[in-house]
């Protein structure tokens, strides 16, 4: 049996907000969040009972966020929002690292690399989706993310100990 939609919002509202923020920045993220949950609520009765609600919502959120970017034809500033969050982030999965340092290293990357890294590694976008946002090809997006990670490894040695998801 399907749980009340309120529970779905309660359990996944935070994750959806973070995806929207990484892609859009704080302000536009709220519109994307609302559109995500309205679309999800419309479709919810038809969602299979055993579906992974978080994965389903994050997929909708990415699509909505990309729609917002397309509609407004302006460039996002994803990582600019993040340093204020870093104070409470307990860990970024980098052993022994202070999170703020990593975010500073990310924020210091050239714009394309920073966006490609944030979209791919934080928001989980595919390179084809990133190419849609940044312009250019999937390969260019993949290269930008790879260059970003290479730069991070150079400027932030702690990151080198962790394998990057492909």
């Amino acid at each position, binding site marked *: 049996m399907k749980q009340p939609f*309120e529970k779905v919002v309660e359990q996944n*509202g*935070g994750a959806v907000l973070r995806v929207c923020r990484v892609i859009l920045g704080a302000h536009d993220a*709220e519109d994307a969040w609302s559109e995500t*949950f309205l679309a999800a609520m419309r479709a919810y*009765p038809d969602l299979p009972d055993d579906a992974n609600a978080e994965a389903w919502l994050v997929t909708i959120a990415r699509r909505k966020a990309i729609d917002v970017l397309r509609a407004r034809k302006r460039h996002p500033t994803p990582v600019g929002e*993040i340093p204020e969050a870093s104070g*409470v982030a307990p860990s970024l999965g980098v052993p022994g690292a202070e999170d703020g340092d990593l975010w500073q290293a990310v924020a210091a990357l050239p714009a394309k690399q920073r966006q490609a890294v944030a979209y791919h*590694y934080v928001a989980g976008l595919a390179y084809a989706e990133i190419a849609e946002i940044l312009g250019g090809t999937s390969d260019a997006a993949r290269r930008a993310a790879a260059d970003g990670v290479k730069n991070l490894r150079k400027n932030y040695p702690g990151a080198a100990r962790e394998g990057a998801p492909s």
Partner: protein
Amino acid sequence: MNMSLNHLASPDDASTLSRLRDRLGLEAEAEGLLDIAYTTIDSPVGTLLLAATPRGLLRVAYDTEDHDRVLDTLAGRISPRVLRAPRRLDAAARELDEYFGGRRRVFDLPLDLSLSAGFRQLVQRHLPEIGYGQTRTYGQVAELVGNPRAVRAVGTACATNPLPVVVPCHRVLRADGAVGGYIGGSDVKKALLRLEAAA
């Protein structure tokens, strides 16, 4: 690199999310997606869950019924499009507050009786005819609905009333004068009868 979304929580998330959830309730209502809106209110007989469809008040539930379970049941039986959205319940909350304050004798709210059917719903439709401060026996209610032998069925209809307090099943007593069972417990039933006797 293993940046997880969970690590990007920011201190203003809680207030942002609470604001976004309020907005979702309003937008879902405006788009006709809010099949069930609910809220909870404090009362002298404990926290009450109030739930309504666009047609009217659907459910009043006592704490002892376990509000999460009640909401799960509503999601399964009516629709899973359920949100905490207090606005649709404003009138019901106000009238209940007036009732518990002794300032209201009759509820004037649209009701959605779709949780009960057949004879049970028939009984529940007639219960508001028992006036404030009055009581009837299960047998008298059976006569009232035109089926004097259906005393036990009247008892079942009262016990499964989805709208306690508003649909006054608490005014139906056993023929021997004992208060009889009640969905909120017999102490709550006695408290409501005392409230109505005092006003």
